[in-house]
């Protein structure tokens, strides 16, 4: 039957993709493998941001701080309590989950951009008060974390540690996908509509909102913990509020509703300074120093342009174009869109709520 052959085809596609991802380090030098690891760390963290902002519609300007929290907790537990790195990661994820439900409390009372400001204030408190705590950062602003070990595996090599990060990323991806396509995802979508529009729903907001924040924070903590193992250290400067703002901005540009955005957003976040050095017209016209100065300028301009022309994000727009090019008749529309609701959460669900507002942009 077509349906089960489609399912098989999809399984095979997934298997091939995963295999390709797993084999990627073989093609990379050690340095580029390290960069790939950094990309995976941020891609994993951004999954959490997609969940809270894209799916649940709660803007979060404290996501980098939650990563830092995971990193610091891991390093602190290993250093202060002498426990195994992996156990510390697990505990850090749990701690992240709990912290998420606490910092998510303001969301029960306020919505929209006001919430964004509150999360920014929370982020500042993390930066200035929580991270410098002696237990967390050792009193010198930085916690060193030894590269963890697994008996029999050479995790000291970035190529091998990459596999660990890939596993974590895939697990988080699968979790987020399941949430998205399941009942919880539908509730999240309804909440997003409620918050950004004038619709009302009979959904018990509290539980689901807190769940969203907890999950998102746990994912960020996981990413931060593994990132600390990658870098060998986490300092009070590694995950400041400016990084949180950058993460949200880049993710919105890519399209906060799509689960594929985190990967591209992470690539941009990690590689953009270096990448721009090689972008064709620039190296010929400017020196390396000058290019670096232009990076924020170019990022800003891209941000503005992308938002004007593709407000639902680059990934859904490009994905829709690609699909149009390659699609034949399909029995159903298998898009990674949210069940119900508009194409993307950051779409017309505006405060006005008039019945005739136009729906712009294709489905994600």
């Amino acid at each position: 039957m077509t349906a089960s052959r489609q399912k098989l085809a999809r399984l095979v596609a997934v298997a091939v993709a995963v295999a390709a991802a797993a084999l990627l380090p073989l093609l990379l030098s050690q340095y580029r493998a390290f960069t790939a690891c950094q990309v995976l760390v941020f891609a994993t963290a951004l999954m959490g941001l997609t969940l809270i902002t894209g799916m649940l519609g709660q803007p979060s300007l404290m996501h980098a701080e939650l990563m830092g929290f995971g990193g610091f907790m891991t390093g602190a537990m290993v250093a202060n309590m002498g426990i195994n790195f992996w156990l510390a990661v697990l505990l850090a994820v749990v701690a992240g989950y709990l912290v998420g439900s606490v910092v998510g409390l303001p969301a029960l009372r306020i919505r929209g951009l006001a919430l964004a400001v509150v999360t920014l204030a929370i982020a500042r408190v993390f930066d200035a008060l929580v991270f410098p705590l002696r237990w967390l950062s050792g009193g010198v602003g930085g916690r060193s974390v030894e590269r963890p070990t697994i008996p029999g595996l050479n995790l000291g090599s970035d190529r091998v540690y990459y596999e660990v990060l890939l596993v974590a990323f895939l697990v988080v991806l699968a979790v987020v996908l399941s949430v998205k396509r399941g009942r919880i995802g539908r509730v999240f979508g309804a909440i997003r509509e409620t918050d950004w529009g004038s619709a009302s729903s009979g959904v018990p907001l509290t539980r689901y909102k807190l769940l969203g924040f907890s999950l998102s924070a746990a994912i960020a903590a996981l990413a931060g913990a593994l990132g600390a193992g990658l870098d060998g250290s986490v300092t009070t400067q590694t995950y400041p509020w400016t990084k949180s703002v950058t993460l949200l901005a880049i993710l919105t540009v890519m399209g906060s509703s799509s689960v594929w955005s985190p990967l591209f957003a992470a690539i941009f976040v990690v590689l953009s300074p270096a990448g721009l050095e090689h972008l064709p017209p620039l190296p010929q016209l400017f020196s390396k120093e000058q290019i670096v100065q232009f990076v924020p300028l170019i990022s800003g301009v891209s941000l503005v342009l992308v938002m004007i022309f593709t407000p639902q994000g680059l990934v859904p727009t490009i994905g829709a174009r690609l699909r149009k090019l390659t699609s034949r008749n399909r029995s159903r529309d298998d898009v990674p869109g949210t069940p119900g609701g508009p194409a993307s959460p950051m779409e017309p669900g505006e405060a006005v709520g008039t019945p005739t507002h136009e729906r712009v942009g294709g489905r994600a």
Partner: protein
Amino acid sequence: MHADLILPLTIVGIVTGSMYALGAMGIVVIYKTTRVLNFAHGAIGMISAFLAYQLGYLWSMNVGIAALSAIAFSALLGFSIERFTIRPLEGKAPLIKVVVTLGWLLIITSFAGIKWGASAYHVPIKLVPEGTVGLPGVHISYADLATLAVAGVLTAALATFFRLTRLGVAMRAVADDVSSARILGIRVDRVNSTAWILGSVLAAITGILLSPKVALDTYSLTLLVIFSFAAALYGGLVSLPKAFAAAMVLGVVQSVSSGFLHLAGLADLIALAVIIFALVQPGSALMRAVAKEGA
């Protein structure tokens, strides 16, 4: 800690609070009309101050003229931002527009860094003459007094404007319901432009007045403006008097408590506490404003 410090620290806190309040004006004006949180607010102030520096210090123009030119420039900048990059997004979700302002933050900040040097020291122009006033236990400068006066006057003037004038009422109407406002004959486009021009002018005034104190570089003003955001939040991002009050409270509590408690990040903690306090009060402006709009 000595009790004789409380009054001087309170006075210092009022000075600091007036800086926050001044910064909060432009944020509220723009949000009140367009429901957009302008993250580029500090940057607009900063680049206006830089322009004033370029004209008034590097090119030795009259300081008053330099300041006015810089303010005029900011009006133009604000207008352009709204006209070309926010208006095309009408009807889209607010977060999209906020990301646009973030983009502008990057553009303006990096432009200023390229043109004038990101961290090299720049001599800000001084609109207010040097000199201090002796108060119990502490001297405050004329510039501090000017900031306090300007913040107070602006708050009163703007609040009156929004409440009593036709344009002010129109701006509030546009925020509530764009379609209905149109039906009523309000020129929504013009109203939005006005809001952005006004907000940017307020940003420029903040930047030029504060840069002698805060440092004329590409990031200091942005950091300060975070506290302005917190103060504005207390008023639901729409109430000017509440923002002013919150800014004052914030400044005073930060200042006085720093005499008692030497804790890193105390200022940020207090800002957060002020916000939380607003959240748990059932009837607060913050709650009312948010409940109504949903954004």
